[in-house]
């Protein structure tokens, strides 16, 4: 698994769109030909991937929010998977 530096700034790729589905009351990630139904944590993570925050800042913010220091591995794993699918761009 690739590890991105903490200073990297992830953002959603142009082709991907985050959507709150009012009808299902669930967060979705939309991209060509596919719909990913997100869990609440993944939604929180992606909502923070705005191209301005660094991975370090995103992790800090999530640790505080979920009062849990063990989120690192899961979040990094999610970022790597989405980047691998071309849905997340990891900027410098």
């Amino acid at each position, binding site marked *: 698994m690739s590890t991105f530096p903490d200073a990297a700034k992830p953002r959603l790729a142009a082709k991907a769109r985050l959507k709150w589905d009012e009808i299902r009351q669930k967060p979705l990630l*939309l991209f060509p030909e596919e719909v990913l139904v997100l869990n609440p944590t993944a939604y929180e993570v992606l909502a923070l991937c705005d191209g301005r925050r660094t991975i370090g800042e995103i992790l800090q913010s999530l640790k505080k929010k979920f009062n849990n220091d063990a989120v690192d591995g899961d979040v990094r794993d999610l970022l790597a998977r989405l980047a691998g699918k*071309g849905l997340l761009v990891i900027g410098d």
Partner: protein
Amino acid sequence: METPRPYSLLCELTYRCPLQCPYCSNPVDFARYDAELSTAEWERVLTEAASLGVVQAHFSGGEPLLRADLPQIVRCARDLGLYTNLSTGGTLFQETIGAQLREAGLDSLQVSLQDADPKSADRIAGGTPSFEKKKRAAQLAKELGFALTVNVVLHRRNLDRIEEIIVLAEELGAERLELANTQYNGWALKNRAALLPRRAQVESAAAVAEAASIRLKGQMEILYVRPDYFEQYPKACMYGWGRVFLTVTADGSVLPCQTAREIRGLKFENARHSSLDHIWFESETFQKFRGTDWLPEPCRSCPRKEVDFGGCRCQAFLLAGDASVTDPVCSLSPLRGLIENAVAEAESAGDVEWIYRTPAESRRHASSGATG
């Protein structure tokens, strides 16, 4: 169990098309359906779809760029919060319409290519030069900032060039490449003898696609759809009937999948006369093969029934004459021999000519009353 709501709507805006590919997924008798929905009717369909739970709208055809109101329809979908995708042959994609679609908020653009070899590509698409126009369309899509998917239908006459096809898609800057082996329904079934590959072609292409998808990870996603004739189990067609997808055709018929019209005896309601909500939840056709309760043996007692839902209903009808039996492609189907025979014939046969998807051919077919 609660009936699921659809995520995805396919809008087949028109059956008109400048190309004549012999594996077209439009109905063989498409020439019968000539009264296209109006702009206002499409806007109503999209509005009803969004209320029903649809979050993605795919615009396809025929050639959807033949509809002058395409930007207006796309804008309507975007205003409803839908993710929008356009599938085009590309020959009519030009700067002005491209900019209009970008402005309308189109999220993703899919251009079909027929082959990496120009002569072969033009021949597959029906003879008039289209390959260079398609390449130009893909380049223009990138220049305009679209997320580009390149789609290639694979068969006997282009599978051996899969390597070149992948390189071409890479050169065009596609973010996604769909390499979909032909599904033998409709026109493709009529042309099966010309299109069905030899096993060695299929195996070799799968290996090339897999290696390339590893090499290009993060740069270009490759989706390789294997031909079900060479598999042990059927596809999870539409991820289940009336579960995730619905299609509205050029003339307003509402179908569980784009080829379902081939199943004779099913009645399809029209979006002109009924709401999508009613059709999805109440119509007999959408309920007929929904879920797994309707499944016959060997599916009923099969642990894979929630994986593939018995396979493709159209294929069951077209090959077995009965849409309610196990997809004959399944190795557990008593009719698997039909598939084995076709595969064996393809192994030893020479090249056969196909018939093109033309209005004349379609009318000839419709008037002869043939169905397959």
